[in-house]
């Protein structure tokens, strides 16, 4: 169980350590653990009871994924009460948006944070999505690693099916309250109300309440979780997350209410165009790791290696399949299930040395320049906006696409570091800024050549908001809590190019702006000070007022001309 989690959880870690065969957990070496062992006399004291393989075996048993995460909640973003609240809202909102978009519905979300005690909140997220069929509700909300998204290669917010159940688990752990779900799949159908708890030992849902209720919306889902948390404004706040979500998803509408505010905040829709639906694709051969390749061969119903390659991967034609098999000295008609470990490794190397067409990019759904602009314009009051959507590119066989947007001037604070908003698959990334490839790319650019000030090794300073989005069927996060993007060279390169393009547009805006301001200043200087030259000369030389006027006009004219020349 754990092994499978590690397998999916660490898309970044290199495959080298696993080339030996079955994946292994990196447990500390038992022998090196007790330091005093080395200093002890050669003869072990007789009284001391040593462990035997049998005694250890009695204590060795499977660890449930749920147990593992309830002990390691920080891996999922529940490190502290403040972050726990944010993560809960985030998981619920991400799920809602994914569901709406999959169903082709313009999302309308209601997000409520209700304070129950000093450090206890109830989070309610309601969407107008397609709803969930009755039988699936317990599993989706009461079982970790259950979901629709993990097994397809397609751009979506959620990936692993951990998030919302983990939030429910955290709520249960800290308050003893179940996660409450109300859902209706369509008008005329009943609305089901569930209270669910997760059995951490078994990683299985326990249904506490299950009944049909009166519920107004024609379709949609409402999730309620009570949890221990703290609510604060500012950086890393839920407010920030909601605002950024509204910017990156201008097609969604959010009604947001928080403790201590009079009425709910209504973030209006900026566009009524749904993003194009991303297509699910098969994995590209370049992106597959050896262990995964072996597993796929074992599990595939296809009986011939050549056909297996064509069927399970994208961009593999029969010619390419033949080429790979030839390179690996394997028969195309060999049975994939009977490929030995050594042969699999040959096949793996052959795949990577064969030229294969880049993966199709219709699995991606970028926000688009126009939509980024509309998102920025609706939430940020600035003078200048620009956005860039790069063409798709590929890292390790995974297609991805980088977009950048920039807002400048207006009400943005001029003497602070720029605000950097990072997004992956339209989800705002709020923590671990410094570990993220996006931040590294921003830092790697000399913004001074684009008219901003920047101290060494710091973000640029100026009235700027930077918006960076990376869309991919598989975004390489550095951890399960999905806070930072790993710095693959291909990704870093695309990020840099997108940011530089925004930078160039900004620079030209600033230049034009500055020139106009300088022009204005010069003009006012002429208007202001030339009359004084007239006054002084008249006082000294004692000529008439009309002569003074003539002098002033001539001088103004001379300076105006020289300025434009």
């Amino acid at each position: 169980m754990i092994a499978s989690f590690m397998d999916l959880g660490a898309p970044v870690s290199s495959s080298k350590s696993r080339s030996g065969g079955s994946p292994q957990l990196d447990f500390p070496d038992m022998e090196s653990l007790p330091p005093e062992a080395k200093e002890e006399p050669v003869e072990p004291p007789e009284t001391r009871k040593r462990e035997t393989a049998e005694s250890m075996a009695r204590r060795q048993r499977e660890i449930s994924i749920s147990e593992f995460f309830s002990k390691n909640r920080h891996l999922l973003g529940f490190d502290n009460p403040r972050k726990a609240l944010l993560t809960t809202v985030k998981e619920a909102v991400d799920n809602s948006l994914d569901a709406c978009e999959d169903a082709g519905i313009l999302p309308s979300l209601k997000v409520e944070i209700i304070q129950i005690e000093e450090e206890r909140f109830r989070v309610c997220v309601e969407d107008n999505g397609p709803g969930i069929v009755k039988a699936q509700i317990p599993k989706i909300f009461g079982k970790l690693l259950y979901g629709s998204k993990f097994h397809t290669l397609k751009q979506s917010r959620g990936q692993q099916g951990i998030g919302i159940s983990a939030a429910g688990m955290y709520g249960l752990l800290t308050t003893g309250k179940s996660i409450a779900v109300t859902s209706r799949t369509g008008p005329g159908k009943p609305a089901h109300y569930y209270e669910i708890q997760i059995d951490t030992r078994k990683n299985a849902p326990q249904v506490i309440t299950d009944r049909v209720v009166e519920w107004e919306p024609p379709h949609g889902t409402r999730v309620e979780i009570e949890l221990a948390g703290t609510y604060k404004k500012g950086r890393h706040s839920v407010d920030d997350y909601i605002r950024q979500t509204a910017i990156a998803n201008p097609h969604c509408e959010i009604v947001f209410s928080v403790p201590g505010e009079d009425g709910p905040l209504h973030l209006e829709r900026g566009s009524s165009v749904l993003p194009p639906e991303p297509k699910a694709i098969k994995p590209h051969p370049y992106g597959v790791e050896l262990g995964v390749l072996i597993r796929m061969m074992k599990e595939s119903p296809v009986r011939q290696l050549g056909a297996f390659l064509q069927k399970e991967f994208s961009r593999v034609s029969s010619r390419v399949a033949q080429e790979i098999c030839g390179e690996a000295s394997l028969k195309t008609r060999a049975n994939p299930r009977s490929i030995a470990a050594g042969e699999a490794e040959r096949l793996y190397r052959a795949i990577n040395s064969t030229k294969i067409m880049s993966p199709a990019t219709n699995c991606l759904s970028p926000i688009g320049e126009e939509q980024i602009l509309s998102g920025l314009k609706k939430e940020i009051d600035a003078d200048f906006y620009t956005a860039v959507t790069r063409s798709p590119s590929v890292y390790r066989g995974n297609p991805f696409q980088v977009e950048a947007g920039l807002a400048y001037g207006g009400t943005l604070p001029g003497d602070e570091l720029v605000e950097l908003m990072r997004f992956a698959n339209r989800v705002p990334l709020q923590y671990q800024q410094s570990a993220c490839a996006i931040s590294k790319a921003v830092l790697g650019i000399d913004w001074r050549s684009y008219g901003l000030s920047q101290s060494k090794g710091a973000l640029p300073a100026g009235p700027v908001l930077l918006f960076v989005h990376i869309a991919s069927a598989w975004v390489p996060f550095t951890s399960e809590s999905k806070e930072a993007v790993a710095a693959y060279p291909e990704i870093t390169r695309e990020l840099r190019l997108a940011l530089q393009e925004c930078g160039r547009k900004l620079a030209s805006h600033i230049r034009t702006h500055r020139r106009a301001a300088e022009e204005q200043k010069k003009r006012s200087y002429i208007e202001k000070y030339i009359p004084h030259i007239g006054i002084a000369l008249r006082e000294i030389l004692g000529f008439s007022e009309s002569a003074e006027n003539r002098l002033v006009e001539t001088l103004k004219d001379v300076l105006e001309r020289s300025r434009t020349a």
Partner: protein
Amino acid sequence: MVARGFRTIGAANGKQDRFMAKKSVSAEKRGPSGGKNVLEAIRASAQDIHKKILARKKPTMKFPVRSLSNVRYHPQRGFFEIAGRKKERTLTVNTVKTFAQTLRMVSLSKELIENDDIATKREAYYVSKNWEEARFNEQPESDTVMDDVEAYFAVNREQLGFIPEEKGGDVAGRLVVIDHDRDTGKALRIDCTRFGSGAYSIPISVEQLEFETGADFILVIETAGMFQRLVKHNYWKKANCILISMGGVPTRACRRFIRRLADSKKIPVYVFVDGDPYGITNIYRTLKVGSGNAAHLNEFFCVPQASFLGITPQDIVDYRLPTHPLKDVDIKRARDAIKNDPFIRHHKEWIRAIELLLKMSVRAEQQALAKHGLNYVIDTYLPEKLRRPERFLP
């Protein structure tokens, strides 16, 4: 070449006003009424600018660069002479503000001269408050423009009608200053032996003064405290001298007063300041050869016959004076003088003395002599020093 403007304006008197002037005292007189020529110069420059503008050309004003880097030291002539470097201010969009302010300052000067009036630097600054957008926000701005105007016409600012705020200096001892009554014009004889425990105050303009004295030398003192001690004990009687207190870096009036007095009476000038880089490179050097800032005027505001009595770095050793460590600014000042000050660089004795000071890394004040008794300075130090004036530093 440099002081040309000054001499043209000062006309006939200018030539006699050189170092070691040989002509009579009256020939040195140069009252503020030398203004007629200044007026002409002002009008001529305004006319020039006016013509240029009407010819649709951009007018230009040339100012000598006022800094130590633009002076030359002439040992024979005895003062810092301005070197040729000039900065040119052409009327453009970027310079229009300063240009307008400079012209208005010139116009103010013209008005002052015509009405035989004066304005202090501070007053001039307040007058500018009438100039709407062209007003100065802070006095240093107006002072800079005033210094520019002064350098442009190569005149003394008193000739432009502007006077400094600062006091000139105090005088006591064997000297009669002949001034004139402001109303009747009658000669006033001021006997500097008759001020008791007080002193005669050097006026801002000293050109009209004449002197009578039987003193052997002039002792110029940095601090008011030391001056008080010498006056209190009638040291001038004992040593038959004139005592002058500078109170820090000497004002132009103070320098000019000492210069005219020493020139006209042919008596030596001995300088007694603190034994530190400030006393040597700022106070003494400015008194003797002038400053970098007013280099166009140094010819008249310097005392080339001055020599340095003490406190010398060697005195610190010889008289076992109590000392303070040199501060960072002292060290910087001393190193800077050795490297950049044309006067110090010309005199090996001074370079050796300052290097000794740097090596010891200490400074000693005039009052340090009090270690050996309050009147040690009168009874021992000054008499000992004055026995060997040829050993004074240049």
